[in-house]
């Protein structure tokens, strides 16, 4: 529950910081921090246009997308405070809840019968399929290092096991940031600012969503960023610190995460669509290297 609360607070600032950093880097003043949320509130008040091709799938997809994200957030522990729902292999449930949201998001896009949205849906399905192993290898590594299976105890044990976990931590943070970028369709894979439907992924899938539904999807996207932010914070924030320091560090990390996304997007070009699968598979191999390294370390310890 606390994770959900923190995620909502984080999500309030997150998109604003990214946009602000991007505009500052490009030499503009840029909109206020809360502009993205003002846009969402405008959308919430607007009326909707539905395509005649769509069916009830189109109506329930945004709702289930958001609901699955909220459920995933409830599962998350925050540094030092356990989640009520935590249990063994809860990260599997986390991954599959996100997958459920994605499933409905994809078929929601296909429901319009548009070839552009089909294209976007296809890319989304492919990229998330390729990113899935990286997430599981990462948690396999963490489970191996700590000997625990629930996210709560993995992260707790992780900070108590000293320098051994450092290597795992570095790789975990890197992989998680990249997965967050892929799952949220950000820069190296997708460019949220592109104007051509043919080169879009996320944006093209929501072409036909309007008003309330579009707002729900955008709220979901912001929460998804916060979800990965909290995961990263769990790895970086030592559980032994006092509560005020942990809170300060948490928001520091979220701000830094958002700012780094803004910086990355300012200086980096989107990859060619053809190169994206390679890039995502590379992530799995990096995670695999991390696994082998920690395996070697564990093996020496056992012997």
């Amino acid at each position, binding site marked *: 529950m606390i994770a959900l609360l923190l995620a909502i607070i984080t999500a309030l600032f997150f998109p604003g910081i990214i946009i602000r950093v991007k505009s500052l880097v490009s030499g503009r003043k840029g909109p206020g921090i809360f502009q993205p949320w003002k846009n969402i509130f405008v959308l919430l008040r607007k*009326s*909707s*246009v*539905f*395509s*005649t*091709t*769509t*069916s*009830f*799938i189109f*109506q*329930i997809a945004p*709702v289930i997308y958001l*609901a699955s994200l909220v*459920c995933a957030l*409830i599962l998350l522990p925050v540094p030092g405070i356990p989640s009520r*729902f935590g249990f*063994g*292999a*809860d990260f*599997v*449930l986390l991954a*599959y*809840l996100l*997958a*459920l949201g994605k*499933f409905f998001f994809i*078929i929601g896009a*296909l*429901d*319009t*019968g*548009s*070839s*552009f949205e*089909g*294209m976007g*849906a*296809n890319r989304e*399905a*492919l990229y*998330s*399929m390729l990113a*899935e*192993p990286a997430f*599981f*290898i990462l*948690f396999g590594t963490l*489970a*191996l290092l700590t*000997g625990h*299976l629930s996210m709560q105890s993995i992260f707790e044990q992780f900070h108590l096991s000293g320098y051994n976990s450092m290597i795992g931590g570095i790789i975990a943070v890197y992989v998680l940031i990249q997965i967050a970028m892929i799952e949220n369709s950000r820069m190296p894979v997708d460019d949220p600012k592109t104007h051509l439907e043919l080169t879009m992924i996320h944006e093209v899938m929501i072409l*036909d969503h309007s*008003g309330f*539904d579009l707002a*729900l999807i955008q709220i979901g996207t912001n929460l998804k960023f916060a979800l990965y932010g909290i995961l990263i914070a769990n790895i970086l924030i030592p559980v032994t610190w006092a509560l005020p320091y942990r809170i300060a560090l948490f928001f520091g990390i979220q701000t830094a995460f958002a700012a780094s996304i803004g910086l990355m997007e300012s200086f980096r070009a989107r990859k060619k669509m053809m190169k994206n*699968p390679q890039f995502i598979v590379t992530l799995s191999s990096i995670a695999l290297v991390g696994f082998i390294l920690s395996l070697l370390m*564990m*093996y020496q310890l056992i012997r």
Partner: protein
Amino acid sequence: MENILITLPVFLSFVILFVPSKGRYYTTLFISLGIVLITSVPAVNVIFSKGVLPEIFHIATGLGSVTLSIDGLSAFFILVTNFTAITGLLYSKGYLEPYRSLKSPAQLSIHNFSYTWLHLSMLGVLMLRDGIPFLIAWELMAVSSFMLILFEAEKRATLKTAVNYLIQMHIGLVLLVIAFLLCEADTGSMSFDALKFYFSHHSNIGLFLLFFAGFAIKAGFIPFHTWLPEAHPAAPSHVSGVMSGVMIKMGIYGIVRVMTNVQSDLVTIGLIVLAVSAISGILGVMMAIVQHDLKKLLAYHSIENIGIIGIGIGLGAIGLGIHNPLLALLGFSGGLLHVLNHSLFKSLLFFSAGSVYQACHTRNIEQLGGVIHKMPVTAGLFLTGSLAICGLPPLNGFISEILIYLGLFQGLSTGTVYQSIYMLMAIISLALIGGLAIYCFTKAFGVVFLGVPRSETHTATSEVNTGMLFPQFLAGTLMFLIGMFPLLFLQPLARILVFLFQINMDLSWITIIRSISLVGKMGFFLIGLTFLLFLTRYWVLKTRNIRQGPTWGCGYTTGTARQQYTGTSFADAVAGLAEPILKTQKEDRPISEEEIFPAERSFATHPADVFRLGLNRLVDFLMLILKKLARLQTGNIQHYILYAFIFMILIFVLLYLKIL
């Protein structure tokens, strides 16, 4: 008294052949319900009240006494079989309706008779423990399903597929016969119980692998799967549902049954099963993605799911081998629960695919589209099945998958370094299978049900009748039940396994139980939250001015249905990545330089199966040799007498030299 009762359906089933066509369906239903009742009562008894001791019936026949035995494992499979067989029969009433005018009453009688016998023979396989009766039941199962596939025998392709199926089943049978004979040669008796004695003083791997290969042909593990993607689409949909839902699980039953008797080398056996299963899972789903035929796509998914079941069983065997009760329990319970889950969602998917076929008269995904507008209930049911087969919460597929995941993650840090690597490989393949399944079913559901119809001749007009929807609702309800109250199913299953494999249940199982019950609660929360959000949305949108309009086409307003994204283009990304395995054949004629005004073009892709191609090459090679041997067959009686004479001399010489 009980003993007579249990053989009664065998005799009653012959009545179906003589009933006039008006009462045929209800006679079949009545007899099937009788079979279900007679076998389910002892099965439920074994699982719930009697605890764990097997129920045994001795039946005297002319050739001696036959023993039917229902222990926990059999009881579990019996209940799974009965449920799917009955839902299939209920569905068949509506599905066979259009065929009543096309087929002769005799053909329909034989079809119903074979269906009953498929059901009976599967139950026989599950209850018979002695080698010969077991093999007879196994053979009856192959023959009756062969008859069922032949339903549309007027199509040449169906005939060819059915014969191919029969031949492959017999290769499996030969392997099983050899395996049983090896056991008999050593122990003097031919039964599953004698295997225990054989395994106790022999190397276990060889005989187990022989059994595994024999059962794997039925179960459809890669590379033994080549009959499966052809036979399932050729059969009528209710038969595909039963074949994919339960008949191929008889192979799994056999593997587990043999495994209960294995005494040593369990780790190696587990690793082999794990490796074969992981490969089956990934390749199965990859091949599924590129299919154009909806039922063929589902058939390849059966291979994938058999892979998931196999990963669970392999994990369980490793757990037994390294004496880790938790690992064994997680692996086997995950695998066996997936048997139940797969039988539910796969039969549901085949039934709804059959409904689409009946309404649109094609199974080709590229010609369908927009079915949801005319058949919303079927679409909803297919969606439920899709979510379950992808292992998404809050449905049943997730429960079995998380059990296997739990076991694999647990296994990461409990064994040697090599075991950790194997476990991680299995985790990666399970994660990949999950991602690919989502890719595949967003394609299948999206292209078939969403958008607008791609072809005017294959447009659905109305929903199928309630009689066909009812069995699908039954399966769907059970799927939600398993997903949200997993403990109701998991705890009896665990009790069976504890007794079957003599596992000492330890305390950590309680934490697993807690995990799984939390997953169920999360399902409730998810559904509640969705409902709440939807109500809010409904309430907000009620006050708004809602307009309808065409789909945004980037300013282009006169698009046609054929410009929609097709299944082939959706699958193209994976087809491109996995080209070496998939070997998709493309029919394409590039524009040559001389062609100033290009003429009409066509483009077609044909998904191929490399294993099928390999098998064809093997058969071609055999045919070549056999053709050369055919020269001996001169048709001249003198030559044949000469052969017999040469043969006798050969025997004589061999005997003289004391070689024989």
